């Protein structure tokens, strides 16, 4: 059983997610060219990290749970890797 977490961490993470969402929307209107995608994906990665660490409580877990969480990420990598292989090599 994990020790009880003060809700402030959850509220803080939620506010951070909302702020990052607002940032994503705002930056989407800046003419950064290819940089728009990079910025959006970077913010998205930070948001996913916050969800994993705070809401999924992975920061307090170890061993097997982290392996399974990592497996999810690894499998997403497979989807992106083999999926983009088609898009990048089409003639």
């Amino acid at each position, binding site marked *: 059983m994990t020790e009880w977490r003060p809700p402030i961490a959850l509220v803080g993470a939620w506010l951070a997610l909302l702020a990052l969402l607002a940032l994503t929307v705002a930056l989407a209107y800046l003419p950064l060219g290819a940089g728009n995608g990079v910025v959006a994906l970077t913010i998205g990665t930070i948001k996913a990290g916050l969800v994993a660490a705070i809401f999924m409580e992975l920061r307090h877990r170890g061993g097997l749970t982290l392996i399974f969480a990592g497996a999810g990420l690894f499998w997403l990598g497979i989807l992106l890797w083999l999926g983009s292989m088609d898009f*990048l090599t089409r003639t």
Partner: protein
Amino acid sequence: MSEKNYLTTDFTLRSWFLTTDHKRIAILYFASLIFFFFVGGAAATAIRIELATPQADLVSSDVYNRLFTMHGIIMVWFFLIPSIPNTLGNFIVPLMIGARDLAFPRLNLMSWYVFMLGGCVTLFAILAGGIDTGWTFYTPFSTLYSNSYVIVAAAGVFIAGFSSILTGLNFIVTIHRLRAPGLTWYRLPLFLWSLYATSVILVLATPVLAITLLLMATERFFGVGIFDPRIGGDPLLFQHLFWFYSHPAVYIMILPGMGVINELVSCFSRKEVFGYKFVAWCSLAIAAVGFLVWGHHMFVSGQSLVASLVFSFMSFIVAVPSAIKVFNWTATLHKGSIHFDAPMLYALAFIGLFTIGGLTGLFLACLAYDVHATDTYFVVAHFHYIMVGGMVTAYFGGLHYWWPKITGRLYSEYWARTAAVLIFFGFNLTFFPQIILGAEGMPRRYHVYPPEFQVWNVLSSGGAAILAVAYLMPLFYLGYSAFFGKRAPANPWDAPGLEWQTSSPPPEFNFETQPVVTREPYQYNERFEAEPQNA
């Protein structure tokens, strides 16, 4: 039969519909799946009747589209995927590992309710007018052109997916955390290794299906450009996402069947499984490599040649662990004391039919041949050899094997063997002609065809009639045995697994005392330390 078992603890409807006992939930799933099996089977029957003649006699093309879509959706998501895990797995997993229940009993009950909700939504879509996209929901047809109940059906499948995830999660945690003292990983029955691998796929792949269906619904409903190239989408993205789930889903369907076959071949050869560790790790290898092959469904879709070559190569690789299993089952039979009881007949049928399904799969993994065979009956025959010849046969084998444990009753061996032989005969008569039809170029998903294909289609429809009768037979003799069959002893097969060391049917919490495991699995040549309880 012991005085108090899980069937006799309480007889009220409430005790069934609010139960958290894994055995009762397995029965709830079992009853539901019988219903869905016959709904899907009714569509198949209509299809085969229509195809008995070259012209359209029974249904229009539009109705035919809805029939094969209904058949596919119901059979894949509401029968094959949950079949062994949620019925036999739910019942047997805690018994096999010496536990009182699954790790999350309430989650288990919730998974059944979620499954039924998904099933009801899908049935509503069918009754309201049906879906004509095929079970694959391919875009742009599903998003732009189809006038059928696409979103409702997709919602049903979407909901049912959560049931799969909950079951997978439950099995993973249960197998990790609730094994009896002494039950190390290498002492686990191979059925559990295969269910573990299946669960990993369920948890990792099913969310992608949910995302895919959600994206499809978003494009159809809101016109957001995801798959439609006119508004910035990519039409092949849907197929990539869909098959990223749906090819591993093939292994969700077949791996539990392979697990059952390990138990059957070993028990009825009275030998331990040849190459236990290889078979165990092959389950995980199939689960892992199965995620790298989805593009072989897209060889003619416009996918790049480089991608096709890679997916073709990987498809050959994934056949290796499957082949290892087939060789190991055969080696297990070698010099065994083979008993041709009904479960063993199903197991032997599985090995032969799965091998044909697997080998035809290698044909389709070849780029050049696949171009010829895509969307022909060759593909239809191939996956039915795996799904029906393999998985359904294994399901029936497992059902007969564990039936005395589940019900505490013995079935008629004569009728069970007759049904097993009829299923094997009927199945081959149904689907072998389809291999020939496909090789000759008959396309799938048409309700009319050139007259020169009629002979093979008549044979196939005749086989389907035999198969239908054979599939109905267990409903009668197993149903009869559940109420009037001879009482089953605790261990009718004289098998060493933990599930056979408790009474038949088991008590509510499975074991009177916590079992302790002191030996390897499948030790058929040793006397048991604990004498079977002939309850």
